[in-house]
């Protein structure tokens, strides 16, 4: 791990307030603290879900088996690929290759929309199966099974909300790159957010979709 020595640290602290390095450092730290607070939010939800999975193993596994594994797996791959594209775009902006950076941001944006479309299709199939716990049509299901779907819809819904914000972020990024504004700091901030939303899904996918499949 590289820890800056006191001299470098002081130099940074006393550098021009608008020097790029200082802006980069403060922005990165701010974004990370924000993302880590979001991690605590999702972490609490995941913990509550896992505790209930332990208390009601059979019903929660039954609920998990009702979910569409193929759609969920494809969505995971879509999200991971979009993350790769965003990472490549950041590197291209660093190399001043704005045209290709724009291409990769656009591709990631389309993949983000594809994720939401697939997620929406899944929700519709679950609606047809009477699995939406707050609709009267699910009344004949066991209470613990409905509890599973409360967790499922709340966690994936909150994640989808983050995806929508991320997609707007990527659209803003396209605008910035189109106007050829020197936007490396914006690119980094939005990219970090996008990857974070990916990390959340990496945890949601196995605990929601992969229970009781053996």
């Amino acid at each position: 791990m590289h820890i800056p020595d006191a001299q470098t640290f002081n130099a940074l602290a006393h550098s021009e307030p608008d020097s790029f390095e200082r802006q980069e450092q403060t922005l990165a730290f701010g974004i990370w603290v924000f993302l880590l607070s979001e991690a605590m939010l999702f972490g609490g939800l995941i913990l509550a879900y896992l505790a209930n999975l332990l208390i009601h193993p059979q019903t929660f596994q039954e609920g998990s088996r009702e979910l569409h594994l193929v759609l969920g797996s494809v969505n995971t791959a879509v999200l991971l690929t979009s993350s790769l594209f965003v990472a490549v775009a950041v590197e291209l902006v660093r190399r001043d290759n704005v045209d290709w950076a724009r291409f990769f941001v656009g591709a990631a944006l389309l993949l983000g929309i594809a994720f939401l479309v697939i997620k929406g299709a899944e929700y519709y199939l679950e609606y047809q199966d009477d699995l939406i716990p707050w609709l009267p049509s699910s009344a004949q299901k066991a209470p613990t099974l409905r509890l599973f779907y409360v967790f499922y819809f709340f966690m994936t819904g909150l994640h989808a909300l983050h995806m929508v914000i991320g997609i707007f972020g990527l659209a803003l990024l396209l605008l910035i790159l189109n106007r050829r504004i020197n936007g490396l700091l914006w690119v980094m901030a939005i990219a970090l957010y996008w990857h974070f939303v990916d990390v959340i899904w990496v945890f949601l996918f196995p605990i929601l979709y992969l229970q009781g499949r053996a």
Partner: protein
Amino acid sequence: MTRGAGEIKAYLGAYLALMVLLLATIVIAQINIGLLQLPAALAIAALKALLILLFFMELRYAAAPIKISVIAVTIWTLIFALLSFADYVTRPWPLNPTIETSVPRNLITDGHGGD
């Protein structure tokens, strides 16, 4: 560590590893490994998250305060998990039928909707 020219190659490597891990977690979920099912799924998820953090989010190049913050949040969440599950897995119902209790089990399970 400093940024090199091989960044995009590193991203591609991380991406391939992520895809392999995604396949692995789906395959392992279909195999009956009993109680190891959930720990295995969570371990693979943690590994995937680590790859995204280190490579895509460039945590390996990040300043020390950022690394410390990430480690602190991870440990904090693990403390929450440890304390919560220390409670849940040592309760006599229905999770752990091996624990002796003088209270009739149907009373303990009542209201929990246990399976």
